[in-house]
C-alpha cells in the first residue's frame, strides 16, 4: 500500500473522508433547499420548472451533480466500512450501559441508513421521473419544459407521501445535529474561540434546513 491509500484506509483517514463528503453534502443541501423553496412561489410552478430544467441541462451543473453522486456514494461506502471495523473493535458488549454521549452521535449509522432509504425513495419519485420520465411538459414563453412541479404537487397531495418526507427530514435533522460539528472536529478545527460558533451554526443548521425542507410538502399538502 502506498502512503495515499494507506492514509485513506487509516482510522483517521476514513474519518476525514466522512467529514469532507459530509460537509460537501451539507453544502448541497443548501443549494437544493434554495431551489426547492421556489415550489412555494405562487407562480404555478414556473420558476421551479425552469430551475429544474437548468439543473438537468447545464453542463457545469451536471458535472457538479456527478460529484455529488460520488460524494454520496463515498459517504455511504466509507460509513459502512467504518461501522463494520468499529463493530469488530468490541466483539463482546456490555450487559449494562449508561451512555454519556448524545443519542444521535451514537446512532449515526441507523440515521444514515434511514436517510439512504429515503434518498432511494426520493430519487425514484422525482429525480428519475425528471430524467427518464414519464412526465408531462409545459411551455413558458414558447419553450417546452418538463413539468416536475405537477409531479411534486401530485405527490404532496397524499398524506402518506407528505408524512414520509416530514419524518425523513426529522431524521436528517438528528443526523446533521451530530454530523455538522463532528465534521469540524474531525478536520481538526477545534478552537476555543470558534467552537461556540461552530456549535451554534451546527444546531441552527440542523433545525432550520430540515424544517424548511419539511415545510414545502406540508404547505403543498395543505394547499
Amino acid at each position, binding site marked *: 500500500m*502506498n*502512503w495515499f491509500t494507506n*492514509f485513506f484506509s*487509516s*482510522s*483517521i*483517514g*476514513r*474519518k*476525514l473522508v466522512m467529514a469532507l463528503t459530509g460537509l460537501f453534502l451539507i453544502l448541497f443541501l443548501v443549494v437544493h433547499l434554495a431551489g426547492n423553496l421556489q415550489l412555494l412561489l405562487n407562480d404555478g410552478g414556473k420558476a421551479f420548472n425552469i430551475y429544474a430544467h437548468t439543473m438537468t441541462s447545464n453542463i457545469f451543473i451536471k458535472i457538479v451533480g456527478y460529484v455529488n453522486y460520488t460524494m454520496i456514494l463515498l459517504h455511504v461506502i466509507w460509513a459502512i466500512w*467504518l461501522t463494520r*471495523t*468499529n463493530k*469488530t*473493535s*468490541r*466483539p*463482546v*458488549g*456490555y*450487559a*449494562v*450501559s*449508561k*451512555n*454519556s*454521549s*448524545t443519542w444521535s*452521535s*451514537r446512532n*449515526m449509522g441507523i440515521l444514515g441508513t434511514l436517510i439512504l432509504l429515503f434518498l432511494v425513495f426520493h430519487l425514484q419519485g422525482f429525480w428519475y421521473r425528471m430524467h427518464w420520465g414519464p412526465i408531462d411538459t409545459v411551455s413558458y414563453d414558447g419553450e417546452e419544459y418538463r413539468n416536475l412541479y405537477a409531479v411534486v404537487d401530485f405527490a404532496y397531495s397524499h398524506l402518506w407521501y407528505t408524512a414520509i418526507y416530514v419524518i425523513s427530514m426529522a431524521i436528517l435533522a438528528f443526523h446533521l445535529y*451530530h454530523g455538522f*460539528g*463532528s465534521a469540524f*472536529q*474531525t*478536520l*481538526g*478545527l*477545534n478552537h476555543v474561540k470558534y467552537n461556540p460558533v461552530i456549535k451554534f451554526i451546527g444546531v441552527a443548521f440542523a433545525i432550520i434546513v430540515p424544517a424548511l425542507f419539511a415545510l414545502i410538502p406540508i404547505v403543498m399538502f395543505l394547499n
Partner: protein
Amino acid sequence: MKITLKVWRQKDNNSKGAFKTYQLDHVSSDMSFLEMFDVLNNDLVQKGEEPIAFDHDCREGICGMCSMYINGRPHGPLQTTTCQLHMRSFKDGETITVEPWRAAAFPVLKDLVVDRSAFDRINQAGGYVSVNTGGVPDANEIPIPKADADKAFDAAACIACGACVAACKNASAMLFVSAKISQLALLPQGQPERKTRAEKMVAQMDAEGFGSCTNTLACEAECPKGISVTNIARMNREYYGAKFSSENV
C-alpha cells in the same frame, strides 16, 4: 448498607465467562469500591470460593491500574478512578453490575483483569523524544510559553487506564493516543520527530484493533483525568500534516 453485586467471572482468556451474583450485607458507606471487593474476597476465601481477580495498585487514582465497568460506566457513577469511588455513591439495597473493560484490543485475562499492553506498544511506536541520557541542554535554555506548557501538562495527565476505550462505542483509543501526541507536539522538544511520531503511533493504534473515533465525546465525559477531545482534533491535524508533508512514502 446492603449491596447486591453482579460480577463478571471468567477463568482465563480461553474460557467463557458469566455473571455471578453476590450478596453483601455489611457494607460501610466509607469503604472505597475496591475495599468492598477486598471484604468480599476475604469472605469468599473463607468460604472456599475463589476470590475475584481485579487490577489495582496505588489506590490513589494515579497509577491507572484499576479498571472496572460499574453499572454501565467505566469507573462507575463519578468521573474518577474506581479506587477513588466510595460506597456512599450508591444506595442501600442497590444492585451493582461490574464488568471488565470490553474491547478486542483489551482481552480479558481473568474475571475483571484485562490486558492493556496495546497501550504500551502504541507508546513504543513513538511516544517519546529521542534523547539519550546526558548531553542535553540546560533546562532553561528553551523557554516554553506557560500556556503551551500547561496544555502539554493537561494532555500528559493521562493515566492510561483505558476508560476512554471502555466508554467509546467503537472501543477507540484516540483520546489516549492523542493525549501523548498532543503533549509532545505542544513542546519544542517534541518537534524534531513530530511527523513520524503522529504517523507511527496512529498506525500502531490501528494495528492493535481499536475502533475509529466518531466524535460521540463519551471518552471525555468518562475520563477520570478530564483529558479533552481537543487533543483528538489536534491529533487529526498532526496526522493530516504528517501524512501529506512527511517524506515517508
